[in-house]
């Protein structure tokens, strides 16, 4: 399994953000994680990129165990992940090119390799004409595509998308979802946290519902959402 949660709980003071989570994600899966605000979706993501550790239980991601990982191992784990946020988190003082190039630069790629990969990815994302623009000069949809490009530039094994369409209008959201599906079809495991699982076409993903830190039995769903 690429990702496994074994009886994982995360408490902040006495408040349970996640409780007794049992979850496995296989290579190449598209997992849709749904639930209301504060249900624990973001906490679950943080546990995957090990920005946080569980209070109890073990999270294992691509061979890295939360109970054994050292701070020095975090960069190599995170280079296997791509993360997309609802608020894009693009660096405002850098161009589109520099934002997308960042994960390659911090991994020590040569300038030539960086240019080749970034140009090719920007072309795929139809953003080549925007490569010298700054984030504030882009539309919301373009910013999110840049964020996805940044997440994908280093060929991650897993793409975590935390409410990537939360700030976008329906048409742009649809395009972003299509992009995530394409990425998944190309072999990358995608975990998408969303308020609106209906955006994902039926039969293309596995659905999970989080409610107040607990995974709700998927059998209580009617395909696209909770009863």
């Amino acid at each position: 399994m690429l990702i496994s949660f074994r009886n994982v709980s995360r408490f902040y003071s006495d408040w349970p953000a996640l409780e007794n989570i049992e979850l496995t994600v296989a290579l190449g899966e598209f997992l849709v994680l749904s639930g209301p605000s504060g249900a624990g979706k973001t906490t679950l993501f943080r546990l995957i990129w090990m920005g946080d550790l569980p209070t109890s239980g073990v999270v294992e991601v691509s061979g890295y165990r939360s109970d054994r990982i050292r701070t020095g191992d975090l960069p190599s784990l995170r280079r296997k992940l791509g993360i997309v946020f609802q608020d894009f988190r693009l660096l405002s003082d850098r161009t589109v090119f520099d934002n997308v190039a960042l994960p390659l630069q911090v991994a020590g790629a040569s300038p030539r390799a960086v240019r080749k990969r970034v140009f090719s990815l920007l072309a795929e994302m139809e953003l080549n004409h925007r490569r010298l623009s700054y984030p504030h000069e882009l539309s919301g949809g373009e910013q999110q595509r840049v964020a996805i490009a940044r997440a994908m530039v280093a060929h991650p094994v897993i793409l975590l998308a935390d409410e990537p369409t939360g700030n976008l209008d329906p048409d742009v959201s649809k395009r972003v979802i299509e992009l995530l599906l394409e990425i998944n079809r190309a072999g990358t495991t995608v975990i998408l946290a969303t308020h609106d699982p209906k955006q994902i076409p039926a039969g293309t993903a596995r659905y999970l519902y989080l409610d107040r830190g607990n995974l709700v039995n998927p059998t209580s769903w009617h395909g696209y959402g909770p009863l």
Partner: protein
Amino acid sequence: MIHLLKSSLFEGMLNIREKLGSFLVTLLMVSLSFMVFDIFLVVSWNVGAVLSDEQENVGIELFLREDVSEVEAVNLADLISAMEGVRSVYYVSPLEAEAVFRADLPEQADLLMLLGPQFHLPSSIQISLHPDYRTSEKVGGLARTVSGMDGVEDVVYGHEYLPGLTSAVDMLGKLVVLAGLVLAISLSLVVANTVRLAVAKRALTVKIMSIVGAPGWFVRMPFLGEGLVTGIAGSAGSLLLTGIISGILSSSIPHNFLPGKWILLVLLLGASAGAAGSWMGMRSGIPKPRS
């Protein structure tokens, strides 16, 4: 690795470019603070040079009794030259003493004539000491030992001014170290605050770098570089300003500027204060990879 270093350097330049104004203000603050220290060093260096010259002349002079023959005096000098702390001894015969007197005090040469041909200045032994033995305590100890030797009439070793000279040299050395320490601490705090502000301003960049897998040193190096540049450039700027002031004043107040070793020391102090400040600033500013 080279590409990674280049990228880190680029990040450092972005840091400085983004807040060039506040960086220059910090640089000026560091330069001016260092300038006070540099001026203190120049004064200390020159006072220290005077004191060292005085200390260089510290020695013991034994005046021998009239009945001590030249052979006995030379034997005594040989005995003393073998003692610990003694660098060299020199026997001054009555005739040589008289010649020296006439050369040094020509206006009082008549005095010798008045005292008559039967009068002779006493012979003496001049003892030069190893540098470590030029302190008040050690000179005093040696003077007490030789004063008890057979044939010795009197011992002169500057016991009036030597304790003051020794403690002045000691005090000056301690003051320089103390001033350097205080300055290094205060400048570290200034740099720490600047770096903390820089980290706060670039919080998102730091966070994103950590999330996309940047090694810890890659995130920290630009801030460390900023502290180092601030410390070195600030201390170099202060040396330049102090050098200009020193040049202007040299005709009215003759003095020497700092020697190369001290200049290097000031630059090193600047670099250390900058690096320590960066470390303090990053410690409280950069979030842990898990936060």
